[in-house]
Structure formats: C-alpha cells, structure tokens
C-alpha cells in the first residue's frame, strides 16, 4: 500500500502552497516504482520467452510442402504428433526412466538428509559436500566420465572384470541404456536434492523432536510422523522439478549416442526427436508442434502429482 504520510523532505513554505500538486506527482511516482523495478525482467521475459512462445505456436500451425511452399494447416501437426509413434516412443522411454530414477534419487536424497540432519553423525560437512560435488560437474562431463566407465576399452569396470577373468559387462545395450543413463542422473542430482531437503529440515524447530522423545517416540517414528510430513512441500518441489527435468532428457543420451549409436535412435527422448527434426530434417514447424506436445504432457503430469499430494493432505 502506498503510504499516505506527507513527511516528504521539503521546506515548510512548499508544504502549504504546492502540497496537492507535489503530493499527486509523488504518489504517481510511487505507483510507478514497482513497474520500474520490474521493467528489465518484463522486457527480457517478453522478448525471450513470450515472443518465442507465440512464434513457435504460430510456426506449429504451418507445414512446408515439397512443392507449393508453406501452408497453414491449423492443428494438423498436433493430430500428426498424436499419431506419431516416434513421439510416443520417446515419451515412453522418459517415463520408464523417470519411474526408475526419480524414486531412487529422491529416496536416497531424503535418507541422506535425514541421516545428516541432527547430531547422529559428526563431521557431516564431508558427506554433504562430497555428495553434492557431482552437481558442479557439467552434465556433458558427467556423461563422458560414465561413458568411459561403461566402456569396454579403458573403463575401470571392464578393467576389474578382466583382472578377475570375467567377461566385462556391456552396459549400453537396448535394455541397459535406460538404467545406465538413470545412474548418471542419480549420481549428478542426488546431492543437490539432498541439500534442498536438508535445508527444509533445518527449518523445523528442535523442540518438536524433544517433546516427541519425551512422549517415547522412536527416531524412526519421529522421522516418519514429524520430519517427513513437515518437509513435504520441499519434497513435492524436488519431485516436480525432477519430472520436468526427466521429460526434457537430452544431454546424457546425446553424449552417449557417440559411443552407442545403434542403441539410441533419433527419437530416443522427445527432446532428441525435436532436435533431430529441427536440425537434421529442417522440419521446424513439426518440431515446434512436438515441443508443445511435450509441454502439454509435462503440464498434465505435474498437475497430477500436485493434485495427488493435495488430495492426500486433505484426506489426513
């Protein structure tokens, strides 16, 4: 609320004569101030997010014909996307990936956060920083490292297997590829999610635990009944961001494609499909439609998660 105090700095004679004019211009300035603070963001937001979004939406309604140039086709590209097996293949792959990877990653992150919060373990910083460090690594480098680990040539896993006279395991097979990439993501992002949950746990007052302990609750009961429910918002946040990230899976498969070109096609994930449609086939219009279809799937899945959690809480 703009305050109505008139204790503007000013000489007394100003006050009596020009109060109303000065006041209204001052008030106008005050009303304008938030928009001025917002203007750099809004400008960049409109130019680099809203405009490209509209541009892409428009683009997705056209189709380039081999003869006859570009023509408006309305929602045809979306109908085509809906019946496009390549698109649904990619969606299926990232859903399998997410169903496998997100529970493992968030489960571990939650477990680490619970174990490292409080006085159970001393010198927790070593663990916290050590677990977090892979987050600082670019996902390109993470995929490169694990690509070497999975490889048959100089990867340590193959070396150990050979030293034990065993057949080195082959990771990057059609069946092994999704768990192999899931491991890379878990390695990279568990520590980051742990820190977010850890920070949320720090916000719970100690006295809550103390009174539960006085009532004879075990540490496990305290974790399940007090700590986890209290950090549920943070947990939901990490889950939503993990889902969004999973649906956009690109970097790791793109890097691994170099060492396992036959295992992943040009539509292994929706993002890889968009990339190869746009930059391999120059089908920008259809790739824009696929990108929007992906956005719709993302929105639907995120809302399902949010609604399920919300309903559960209401039910309690």
């Amino acid at each position, binding site marked *: *609320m703009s*305050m109505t105090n008139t*204790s*503007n*700095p000013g000489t007394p004679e100003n006050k009596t004569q020009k109060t109303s004019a000065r006041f209204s211009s001052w008030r106008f300035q*005050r009303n304008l*101030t*938030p*928009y001025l*603070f*917002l203007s*750099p*963001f809004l400008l960049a*937001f409109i130019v*680099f*997010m809203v405009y*490209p*979004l509209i*541009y*892409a939406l428009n*683009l997705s309604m056209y189709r380039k014909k081999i003869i006859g140039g570009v023509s408006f086709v309305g929602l045809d590209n979306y109908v085509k996307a809906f019946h496009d097996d390549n698109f649904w293949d990619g969606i299926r792959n990232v859903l399998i990936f997410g169903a496998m990877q997100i529970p493992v990653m968030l489960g571990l992150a939650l477990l*680490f956060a619970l*174990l*490292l919060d409080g006085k159970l*373990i001393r010198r927790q910083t070593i*663990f916290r*920083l050590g677990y977090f*460090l*892979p*987050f*600082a*690594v*670019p996902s*390109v*480098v993470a995929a*490169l*490292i694990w690509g070497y680990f999975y490889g048959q*040539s*100089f*990867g*340590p896993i193959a*070396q150990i297997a050979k030293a034990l006279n065993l057949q080195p395991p082959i990771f990057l097979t059609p069946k092994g590829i999704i768990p192999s990439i899931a491991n890379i993501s878990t*390695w990279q992002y568990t520590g980051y999610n742990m*820190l*977010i949950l850890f*920070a949320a746990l720090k*916000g719970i007052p100690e006295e809550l635990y103390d009174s539960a302990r006085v009532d004879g609750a075990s540490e496990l009961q305290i974790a399940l009944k007090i700590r986890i429910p209290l950090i549920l918002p943070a947990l939901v946040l990490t889950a939503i961001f993990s889902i*969004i990230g999973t*649906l*956009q899976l690109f970097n790791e498969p793109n890097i691994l494609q*170099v060492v396992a070109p036959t295992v992943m096609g040009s539509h292994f994930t929706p*993002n890889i499909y968009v*990339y190869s449609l*746009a*930059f391999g086939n120059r089908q*920008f219009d259809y790739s*824009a439609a696929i*990108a929007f279809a*992906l956005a719709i799937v*993302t929105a639907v899945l995120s809302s399902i998660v949010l609604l399920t959690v919300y309903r559960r809480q209401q039910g309690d």
Partner: protein
Amino acid sequence: MIRSNPPRRYSTGKLLILAFLFVFLGYFLLPLLWLFIASTKSNAGLFNSFGFWFAKDFNLATNLKDLFTYQNGAFIVWMKNTAIYASVASLGSSLISALAGYAFSQYRFAGRSFLFGIVLGSVFVPTTVFAVPLYLLISKSGLSGSLLAVILPALVSPFGVYLMRIYAEQAIPEELIDAARIDGAGEFRIFATIAFRLLLPGYVTVLLFAFVGAWNNYFLPLLVLSKSAIYPVTVGLAYWNSLAAQQSAVQILYPLVITGSVVGTLPVMVLFLFLQRFWQNGLALGSIKG
C-alpha cells in the same frame, strides 16, 4: 571420524549407518577421482594402467600443452567464451531477478498476482519449447555468430525471481523500508543502499546457481551457436568427443577430452567450495517456506 578423546563407543546401528554413508561417498567421489587421475595419463597409459592409479609416465604437463594448442588453441577460446557467457549471464540475470523479486515482495500494485502467476507458470514450461523459435529468431537477427545469442536468453530466470521474492520477504523488514521513506530516501536509493545489502546472501545463492547453470549449459548453445569459434567448453568437449570416437581420428583426443573435462570443471568446483557458507545459508533461507 573417531576422535581419541573422549572415547566414544559406536553402537552397531551407528556403525552400519556410517558404513552406508561412506559407500555412497565413494559412489559420488570415485568417478571424479578417476577423471583427475586419467588426466595425468597418455593415451597408452589410459589403456595400460589401472584406472584408479597413476601410470608410469606422469603426462599431465604434456596433456595440458596439447589441450591448449590443439586446433590452434580452440580450447582456450572455448574457456574464454564460457567465462564471458557465464559471468555476464549470471550477473545480469541475478540482478534483473533481484529487482523483480524485490518489487513483488515490497509493493502492492495492479496486476501483481497475475504477473507473478505467469512467472511461476513459466518455470514449468520445458526449455525445448523456446529452443526452436529462439534458434530461428537468433539466426534471422544475425546473432548466431555471437555470444549474445546465448547470453541474452539466459537473462530471463523466472525461478530466480521466485527465489528473490521469497528472500526479500524474509530478509527485509517492512518497518525498516518505511523508516527510510520517512527519512526522505527515494525508492531506488532504498533498494541500492538498504534492501540490496539485506538481500545479499540470497543474491549470492541465485548468482552462483545461475553461473553454474550457464557454465554447464549444453542444450541451448548447441542449438543456437553456428560456429565453433564461439562454442562454450561443454559443446567443444562434446565435439572433440565425437571426433575421438570416429575410428579415423587421432587417438590423442581421449587424453585431450579427459584433461579438458578436468580444466572445464575445476572453476565451478572451486567456486562452490569457496562460497560454501554463502550458498548453504542461502538455500536454507529459500526453503523455509517450501
């Protein structure tokens, strides 16, 4: 772990937990240790020696020399590009986010909740949706040969705005701002001299994560940048890696990609370790409200 005084007995349960935590410490750190050791090896050394120990010849200096001279010093150019891109994009976006977050937290104005709703909603839109049109718009505008092509889109950070709003609501007491107003300070002076200082821990967190996000970004630069002279390190390394995998290519590329991975990753790691206190506090501040 175990201090000599006072003697402390670990129960079996506690030892199991410690063992569990140490196993995962290995899981998270051994791949990095492997990378650092591998960067000291020649191509032959990579194949002849055990991954978690050094080869007979310590080849780090040669690897670094090769890394900085290969393809006329392309790697140095990529490092420079990444440094410029990450610094400008993170400084710009965090400042823009701080201004916007401050506005959302301190003022009531027409369209406030509508605008904030749009900001929040845009967090959930996949980057892919912007990637293709951004590529087309950037190549139309002739920017695709310039670092601006990746810097400008990175200035928008809806999540940064969201975080800065939460920080601002927690860190800035309204009475303080009102007192400054009564003293006759202008709105921008209040922000620059009082509010920004209070926002600093949150600001550093947003800045650092924006810096890391830009430094490690791969998807957008890969799409929008048209020539290798303006690649960042991530795209450059991926490019060399694809050459290394081709059978015709010179084998020298494996040590180069590995050493380049170390050099391209170290700055971010060092930054995280040094700014630890800042961002750990910043994260805590941001998550209290979930």
